[in-house]
């Protein structure tokens, strides 16, 4: 047997690529994990009860007792910001995961089978994307009634489309590749081909999109909170805090600044992760 005498192999490819990951990914990861940790341990580290009223004489500026000051009802803002983190991270996560799974599965089917299932998906996508995202979400929540659960329903009904489109596009490209044809020749079932061979190779762009979607969902939650259609008081949520504090922007800006900064900082960390991942993907594809 003409054996290949020297099988020259470099270091396993995965390790090589991760080594070049830059600072932005590290900062993003550390940042978001910090936020998540703060949220998780909020009950232990927050100085007060988030719903406790009248801790101070309403609207006191930041001081030693209240690092972020108090709001108009005398509640400690630091505590509320920490507790709100739990809600907002949850909004971002669930608001991405559910549509991602829905959209990915539908996009996978449409991209793999093409034909009429793809045509139907195309039309549905056209209809949903004709409406601005926030308007549609607002409309659905307005119909269903306010609250976090209805918010998730609304987001899922609207967001899945973007994921389906991304996954379907990738799938259409990959389904003609040699290894998919080989899988078909090998008599693998369609399910096996779709989920074991196609999915891992088409999902990454959807995951990257999910990062920016995470940010969008938090902002959507904030917007809904602003309109009173989101999380209901007294549950703290960054958007609701801003909404409730909007009358005091001039007189007591800290009521609005701290939750605002929280939104910005969290979104920033997630964006860093998203950008780095899409960079990596781009470099991997180019090689």
């Amino acid at each position, binding site marked *: 047997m*003409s054996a290949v005498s*020297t099988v*020259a192999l470099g270091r396993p490819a995965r390790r090589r690529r991760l080594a070049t990951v830059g600072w932005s990914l590290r900062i993003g990861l550390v940042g978001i994990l910090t936020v998540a940790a703060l949220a998780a341990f909020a009950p232990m580290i927050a100085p007060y009860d988030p719903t406790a009223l009248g801790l101070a004489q309403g609207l006191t500026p930041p001081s030693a007792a209240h690092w972020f000051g108090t709001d108009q009802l005398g509640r400690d803002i630091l505590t509320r910001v920490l507790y709100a983190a739990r809600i907002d991270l949850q909004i971002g996560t669930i608001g991405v995961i559910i549509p991602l799974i829905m959209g990915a599965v539908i996009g996978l089917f449409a991209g793999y089978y093409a034909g009429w299932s793809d045509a139907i998906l195309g039309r549905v996508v056209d209809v949903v994307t004709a409406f601005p995202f926030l308007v549609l979400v607002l409309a659905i929540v307005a119909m269903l009634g306010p609250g976090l659960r209805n918010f998730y329903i609304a987001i899922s009904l609207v967001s899945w489309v973007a994921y389906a489109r991304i996954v379907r596009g990738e799938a259409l490209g990959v389904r003609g590749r040699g290894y998919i044809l080989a899988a078909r020749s090998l008599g693998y079932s369609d399910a096996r081909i779709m989920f074991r061979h196609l999915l891992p190779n088409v999902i990454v762009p959807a995951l990257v999109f999910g990062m920016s979607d995470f940010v969008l969902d938090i902002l959507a939650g904030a917007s809904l909170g602003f309109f009173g259609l989101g999380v209901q008081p007294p549950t703290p949520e960054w958007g609701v805090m801003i909404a409730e504090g909007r009358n005091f922007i001039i007189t007591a800006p800290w009521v609005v600044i701290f939750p605002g900064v929280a939104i910005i900082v969290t979104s920033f960390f997630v964006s860093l992760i998203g950008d780095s991942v899409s960079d990596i993907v781009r470099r991997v594809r180019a090689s």
Partner: protein
Amino acid sequence: MSVRPRDALRVEALTVAFRGSDHPVIRGVSFEIAPGEAFGLVGESGSGKSLTCRAILRLLPRGAAGTGRVTYGAHSLLELDDAEMQALRGSTIAMIFQDPMTALNPVLRVGDAIAQVIRSHEGLGARAARTRALEMMERVGIRDAARRAAAYPHEFSGGMRQRVHIAMALAARPTLLLADEPTTALDVVVQAEILRLLDDLRREQGMSLLLVSHDFRVVAGLCDRVGVMYAGELVELGPTRAVLRRPEHPYTIGLMNSLPEAVAGERLRAIPGAPPDPERLPPGCAFAPRCELAVDACIAAPVAFSQTSPGHRSRCLRIDRLDDMRRSLAAADGA
């Protein structure tokens, strides 16, 4: 039409390395092309043959730099500034590539594309350039040129596109043509047609030709002299006839042994292993790890050229042991 004075191309100790790497991808390559001569460069992927072409025209990819000396007549190509080099490209030295689709602008009609080349180098007016363009198209064998000139590249087949590409390259009557794998993407019969076209044009215009290919047979067809490259250096160089009749390097013999028609009926004597990583070359002969005749001296120090017959040289310490390897070739073509 006047033929420009014919010059010789001299490449001396050309070395090309990428920034940040200590290991050059082209290592001290030297060869000459006499005026009007056709010279072939044969090698596999990683041999550096395509980069050599680009280095001559100073079209190296980002981050690569060439040192050494490349002269074409009175011009010292590596020392010219960008403007001077740009003036030479297309008008004096032209290049054609493997995939004409990347060389042809997809939104330009082919007639316009060729006319553009003529206008920028010869300063002719639109109508005169158009007429010349049609002439070129006919010359490269595109019949019904007037009608086809209005077509876009994607409407042509591969062979036709390559003809258009050649027409563009030769429109300004260069005296040296660099052809980088011009027929690799084409079908067998079309390949022969295009090679014939290149040969005819070359003789007609008294042009020198550097033909780069991974296929020895392509080069055998129309090149007077041939150089075999491996891992960035020339390992054998000589008149085509001599090299084919009596190859003087184990790699050359190995390449020939890899062709089924060369070993008619017998088993292919494939070269074991794979082309090397430029970052991990031995100090001596790069081919030694795959060579059945290699001894310690081969790996220890760089091997210099030895002249085996006039104009024919090879970088091998084991030349006297090659008869056995050559036997399988002789048996095959019955010569």
